[in-house]
């Protein structure tokens, strides 16, 4: 008798935490390469420096908390935090900036809340916010991108988004862009490629199903919508073109790598859409009407803050008995 072969439902195996973290690290590569090409070796040095201190602080706290070193170090979460923070801080930042930041990320934002899985706020973004509030000068001094004339004062200056807000005065968008050497096709020189790199990495994560599509889509969509509403035809009161916002600052890094952190983001499908949209809107509001160079970090923290509340009201209803 011929046995009919039956295809079983695919045996789905969830990736382990360490494998997920390794994929996230790998997906950072295109953006990291773009950052290095346009802004020099600073970012790579920062990342190496931060990884070193992240492992040190992680081991120290694990010993203090009497946890298994090898088990927790092997999940690579400390390294992911270090890399994400390293991608956010200026390439030319002084050595102590990174140490302070990673201390806040690992010790205060992660372990004081109970370790990975218990932290309410994204550790890298907590560290970024702490650094931005405590050291505003060091944190807003970016290396000048490749292609911008180096001035006599040195090799650092404000980022394109920063310039856009602070030095435009009442100029039309087209006027300002033709005058400033900081802007490329869509957005700031260099920044558009950095964002393109992170978009590429993010799509890999999406394809590998490591992140869901809801948060990036909602965040980028709401940012696009806000930018489209307030574009105002490039007038003197314009908030900048939608492309400038999508491919400027930390948009793609935030949308695919930071807002999607599985621990601190909303977990329900509908909740993720709300969570992402909230981050996108707040990012735009801070960029245009706020006082800080980029709004991603604060928007993500605010989203983290709201996530339990969003989850509470968006629990999917169980299918009723028929």
């Amino acid at each position, binding site marked *: 008798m011929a046995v009919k072969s039956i295809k079983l439902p695919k045996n789905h195996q969830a990736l382990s935490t360490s494998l997920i973290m390794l994929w996230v690290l790998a997906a950072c590569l295109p953006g990291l390469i773009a950052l290095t090409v346009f802004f020099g070796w600073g970012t790579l040095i920062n990342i190496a420096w931060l990884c070193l201190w992240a492992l040190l602080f992680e081991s120290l706290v694990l010993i203090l908390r009497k946890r298994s070193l090898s088990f927790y170090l092997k999940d690579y979460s400390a390294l992911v935090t270090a890399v994400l923070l390293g991608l956010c801080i200026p390439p030319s930042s002084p050595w*102590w900036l990174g140490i*302070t930041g990673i201390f806040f990320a690992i010790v*205060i934002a992660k372990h004081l809340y109970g370790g990975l899985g218990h932290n309410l706020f994204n550790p890298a973004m907590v560290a970024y916010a*702490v650094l931005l*509030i*405590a*050291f*505003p000068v060091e944190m807003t001094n970016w290396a000048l991108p490749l292609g911008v004339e180096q001035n006599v004062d040195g090799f650092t200056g404000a980022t394109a988004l920063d310039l856009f807000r602070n030095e435009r005065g009442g100029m039309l968008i087209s006027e300002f862009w033709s005058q400033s050497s900081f802007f490329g096709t869509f957005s700031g020189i260099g920044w558009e490629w950095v964002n393109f790199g992170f978009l590429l990495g993010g799509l890999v994560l999406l394809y590998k199903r490591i992140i869901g599509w809801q948060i990036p889509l909602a965040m980028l969509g709401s940012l696009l919508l806000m930018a489209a509403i307030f574009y105002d035809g490039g007038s003197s009161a314009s908030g900048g073109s939608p492309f400038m916002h999508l491919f400027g600052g930390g948009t793609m890094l935030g949308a695919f790598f930071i807002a999607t952190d599985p621990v601190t983001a909303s977990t329900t499908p509908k909740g993720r859409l709300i969570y992402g949209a909230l981050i996108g809107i707040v990012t735009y509001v801070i960029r245009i009407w706020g006082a800080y160079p980029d709004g991603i970090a604060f928007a993500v923290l605010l989203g983290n803050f709201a996530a339990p509340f969003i989850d509470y009201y968006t629990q999917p209803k169980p299918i009723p008995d028929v």
Partner: protein
Amino acid sequence: MKKDLKNISSQALWHNNPALVQLLGLCPLLAVSSSVVNAVGLALATIMVLVCSNLLVSLIRHQVTDAIRLPAFVLIIAGFVTCVELLLQAFAYSLYLSIGIFIPLIVTNCAILGRAVSFAAKNTPLISAFDGLMTGLGFGLVLLALGAVRELIGTGALFANMELLLPFTENWELSILPGYPGFLLALLPPGAFLFMGLLLALKNLIDKQVAEKDLKDIESELGSTATHTQN
């Protein structure tokens, strides 16, 4: 009597500390503790108000009926706060300017009204005044610790501008870390919450270790008596 005083002190300074355990009066505690001089100024003002209000509340405790108890106590406290405010304006005007709104806000410090209602309204005047002093000290010491830590981490120095409060302390400023770039966060409100949280954690850690040690002592004592009886 002596035991009572000892009990009041240990309760107010440690076991039932108004700032570390009851978490009362957090608003002035967090807002003013950005430097030692501000902390000492507010601590002295709070101690003075607490001692005087506890004394007066205790003196009139039989005359005040329950119905008007709270308004009467608040009025007494507000009266003493006004005195302190005027005193500060007269003798330490620049300090008054830097602490600003938090002097009048002492009226709303729940630690003070709390002591008036829960202690002074039920006890004799002298004991009440002593309780006020100890509670104020307990609050003030936490304020001082927080102010010192925040000033040191925020600016790298200690006792800056002490002459605003005490004229003879003009050169007290200690630059403990020269060339320190400063850590603005410690001086801002988030820093206050952060360091307050760490201070609470430290207190709980000490309590836990003391309790564990006590437990071990008792166990070893029991163990030694047990071996004795076996022999």
